[in-house]
C-alpha cells in the first residue's frame, strides 16, 4: 500500500455497500429520466422534440462545473502544506477526468441541439467558446497527469496546473463575453428557456441533474479505486524489478519495465 505519510490515508472513498447503493440509485433515476424525459414531458411548443436534449445537456454542463470545482478544491487542499495528502490528488485527478467527459458531452449534445434549432452546429456564443476553452484546459491537465513521475512530484505539478486552469477560466469567460457582446447584441440562446417551464419538464430536468450527480459520485469512487490499484501495481512492479536485479535472476539484462 502507498504510504503518503498522512492521517488521511485511504484506499477507497466509500464503503463498497455505499457505492453499490449510489450506483443502484443512479440507474433507477436514469431510467426515470428516460421515462419522464421521453414520454411524460410534452414536446416543446417551439422546438418540438429537439428540446428534450435539454434534459441531458443541462445536467452534463452542471456536472462539468461541479467536477472541475472539486478538482480545484482538492488541488488546493493538496498544495496547502497542512492538508497535503495523496487522497486529494487522486480525487482531483478522478474528478478532472469525469469533468472532461461531461464537458465533451455538453459540447456534443449542445451541438446536436443547435443544429435543428439554430441551423448551425456551432455558434460563436460566449458560453460555447468558454466551454470549449475549458475543455482544452483540462484536456491538457489530463495529459500532464499521464506523464510518469513520482507520485508527489506529479501531484504538485498537476495541483499547480489545476489551479492555473481554475484561475484562468473566469478571465477567459470575461474576455470572451466582452468580445461577443461588442460584436452582437443578443445571444443566440433562445430566451424561452428562461420563461416558465412546464411541471413535468422541470421534473425531467431535476431527474437529469440528480441522476448525473449520482453517476458522478459512483464513477468518482470507481476511478479513485482504480487509481489506488494502479499505484499499487506500479509499486509492486518496481519492487519485483529491484528484487530481480538484486538476485541477478535475469542474466541477459534486457529491459526491466518500470512503467515508463
Amino acid at each position: 500500500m502507498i504510504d503518503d505519510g498522512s492521517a488521511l490515508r485511504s484506499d477507497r472513498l466509500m464503503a463498497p455497500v455505499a457505492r453499490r447503493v449510489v450506483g443502484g440509485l443512479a440507474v433507477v433515476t436514469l431510467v426515470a429520466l428516460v421515462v419522464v424525459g421521453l414520454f411524460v414531458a410534452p414536446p416543446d411548443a417551439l422546438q418540438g422534440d429537439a428540446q428534450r436534449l435539454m434534459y441531458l445537456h443541462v445536467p452534463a454542463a452542471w456536472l462539468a462545473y461541479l467536477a472541475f470545482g472539486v478538482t480545484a478544491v482538492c488541488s488546493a487542499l493538496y498544495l496547502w502544506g497542512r492538508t497535503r495528502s495523496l487522497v486529494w490528488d487522486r480525487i482531483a485527478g478522478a474528478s478532472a477526468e469525469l469533468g472532461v467527459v461531461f464537458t465533451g458531452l455538453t459540447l456534443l449534445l449542445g451541438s446536436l441541439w443547435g443544429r435543428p434549432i439554430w441551423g448551425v452546429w456551432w455558434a460563436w456564443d460566449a458560453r460555447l467558446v468558454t466551454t470549449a476553452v475549458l475543455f482544452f484546459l483540462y484536456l491538457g491537465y489530463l495529459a500532464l497527469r499521464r506523464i510518469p513521475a513520482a507520485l508527489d512530484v506529479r501531484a504538485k505539478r498537476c495541483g499547480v496546473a489545476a489551479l492555473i486552469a481554475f484561475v484562468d477560466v473566469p478571465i477567459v469567460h470575461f474576455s470572451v463575453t466582452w468580445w461577443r457582446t461588442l460584436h452582437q447584441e443578443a445571444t443566440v440562446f433562445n430566451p424561452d428557456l428562461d420563461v416558465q417551464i412546464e411541471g413535468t419538464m422541470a421534473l425531467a430536468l431535476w431527474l437529469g441533474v440528480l441522476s448525473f450527480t449520482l453517476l458522478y459520485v459512483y464513477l468518482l469512487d470507481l476511478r479513485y479505486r482504480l487509481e489506488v490499484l494502479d499505484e499499487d501495481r506500479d509499486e509492486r512492479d518496481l519492487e519485483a524489478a529491484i528484487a530481480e536485479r538484486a538476485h541477478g535472476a535475469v542474466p541477459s539484462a534486457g529491459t526491466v519495465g518500470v512503467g515508463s
Partner: protein
Amino acid sequence: MSLLREAALIAGKDLRIEARARVVGQQVVPFGLIVLLLFAFALDPDRGVLTRVAPGLFWVTVLLAVLLGVSRAFALEADNGARDALRMSGLDGSSIFLGKAGALAVELLAFEALLTLGVVVLFDVRLASLPPLILASAAATVGLAAAGTLYGVLAAGIRARETLVPMLLLPVVAPVLLGATRAWEASIDGVPGDAWPWVGLLVIFATLFVGIGMLAFGPLLEES
C-alpha cells in the same frame, strides 16, 4: 541581495547566453517572418484581407514564438547539470522566476518590434494611435512571458515537454490573444478609446500570472 537584483542577475545570464548563441535572432525572427509570408499565401494579399486581419495574425505569430522562446529558455539549463546549479544557488524561487520571465519578455519585445515592421511593410498596416498599441503589447508580453515561464518549469523535467507545453499553454493564454488583438484593431482603426478596456484586461492577466509564478516557481523548480 534583493529580489530585483537577483532577478536581474538571472535575466542577465539568460540574455547574455542568448546574445552569444543568437538563436532568437537567427531562428525565431526569421521563423516569424516566414509565418507572415505563409499567411499571405493562405489569404490572398490582393483583396485587403491581410490588412484587416493583420492584428490577429500578428498575435498568433507571437504565440507561436512564445512556444519557441519557452522551450529555449529551459533548454539553456538542461545540460551540464545547470538546473541543479540553479536550484542550489541559494537564489529565491520568485527571483529566478522574475529573471527568466523578464529575459523572455525582453526577447519577445525585440521579436515583436521586428514583426511589427514586417506587418507594416508586408501587410500594409497603418498604426494610427501608438500609445494604446504599445501599452497593450507590453502588458500582453509580460503576461505571455509569465505564463510561458510557469509552464516551462512545470514541464522542464518531462521528456514530452515539446508537445506538452503548447497543449497546456495555448488555452491558458487565449484571453491574451483576444485582448491584444482587439486592442491592436482599435489602435489601427484610430479609436483608442476602444483599446483601453482590453489593455486593462491584459494588465490583470499579467499581474495574476506574475503573482502565481512567483509563488509556484520555487516549489516546481525543486521537482523538475
